[in-house]
């Protein structure tokens, strides 16, 4: 085979691959950024920590960096609003990645029930920034419990042995007292009706 002929064949192969790639594109194209970026963790031990707080006790205060800038403290809401803290295990993992987007369309329910929602993860701010941006625009603050690593999660007793947190919900009333705790099976999402039901109890 001459050099010229080889060049022609190589060009043909490149064109053929290019054509094939063009045909393949629509099959793989759907822009599902968040879903496609999820790291599959498999089924995990449902709960891997021991609670350090109880219903009826004062909720330990904390101050953490917010993804949107600045800091947020639990005491900021004392005497004004109920607070629901949603700990999620880790960014870019299943279940977590569709838990907060669900809460994102329930803002009016939280407002009706005089409650602020605070999302907390042990991931650092840049990771949480990228992850929450992929969810869209969240109306509630997302806080980073990255350093000292998982300190707030540990204070509440929801830091797992691998450094992630439990999928846990703490509901705290306007007086700063813990009124409900749900350390949920990490592999499943807490049903919305359970959350709304607990918040409604605070307003009775």
């Amino acid at each position, binding site marked *: 085979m001459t050099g010229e002929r080889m060049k022609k*064949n190589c060009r043909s192969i490149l064109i053929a691959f290019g054509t094939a790639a063009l045909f393949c594109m629509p099959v793989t194209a759907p822009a599902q950024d968040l879903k496609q970026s999820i790291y599959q963790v498999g089924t995990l031990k449902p709960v891997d920590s021991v609670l350090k707080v109880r219903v009826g006790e004062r909720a330990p205060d904390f101050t953490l960096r917010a993804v949107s800038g600045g800091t947020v403290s639990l005491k900021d809401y004392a005497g004004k609003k109920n607070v629901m803290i949603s700990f999620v295990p880790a960014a870019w993992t299943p279940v977590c990645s569709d838990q907060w987007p669900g809460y994102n*369309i329930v803002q009016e329910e939280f407002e009706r029930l005089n409650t602020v929602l605070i999302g907390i993860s042990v991931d650092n701010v840049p990771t949480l920034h990228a992850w929450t941006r992929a969810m869209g625009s969240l109306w509630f603050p997302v806080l980073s419990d990255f350093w000292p690593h998982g300190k707030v999660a540990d204070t509440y007793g929801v830091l797992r042995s691998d450094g992630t947190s439990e999928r846990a919900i703490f509901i705290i009333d306007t007086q700063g007292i813990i009124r409900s705790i749900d350390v949920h099976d990490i592999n499943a999402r807490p049903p919305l009706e359970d959350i709304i039901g607990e918040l409604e109890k605070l307003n009775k």
Partner: protein
Amino acid sequence: MNRLVLGIIPLMLIVPLILWASGENQQYYKVIGQLRLAVPTDAGDQSYLGIRQKSGQFGLVDVDAEIIIVEIFSMYCPHCQRHAPEANKLYQEIMADRSLAKKVKVLGIGVGNSPFEVKFFRKKYSVPFPLFDDANSAVLNSLTGIQTPTYFGLKNDGRTLTPFFMQQGPYDDAKVFLQTVLRKAGAR
């Protein structure tokens, strides 16, 4: 030689891809074709779907329509939330065309969603077509790996369901999407 290369290489790449995709679709089609859903309690939904029984479960074959479009969604999926108005437009496009209103019906299944969550989603986005829950995640678990939203098209002659269409991910334009579904069903 050149023509041969040009012809064979794309085929070598595309054919396995098509076979893989159609195999995956067949697996999903089987699940959708065998779905059993709770008869809706809402009289309007019952009437729209043409379900004769008032309680228990029904199959999609019982829906009074020649073409059924099923939307697989989740209240927790941001794509489904953003796409909800466009899904509503699909229903409106169908209802606005007299020749289609009774022939083509739409319904949605909130995979992994509780009745409360589905009801909330429906109210939030004023969804006009029936939505069904999947409280025990049976549908979610049987459609392993499926994206939300996903759309299925099924032909129905009252005895047999023939799935003919599946699209994972949202569509851009309800009108164009409807025409695509009708064309694939051989109805246009």
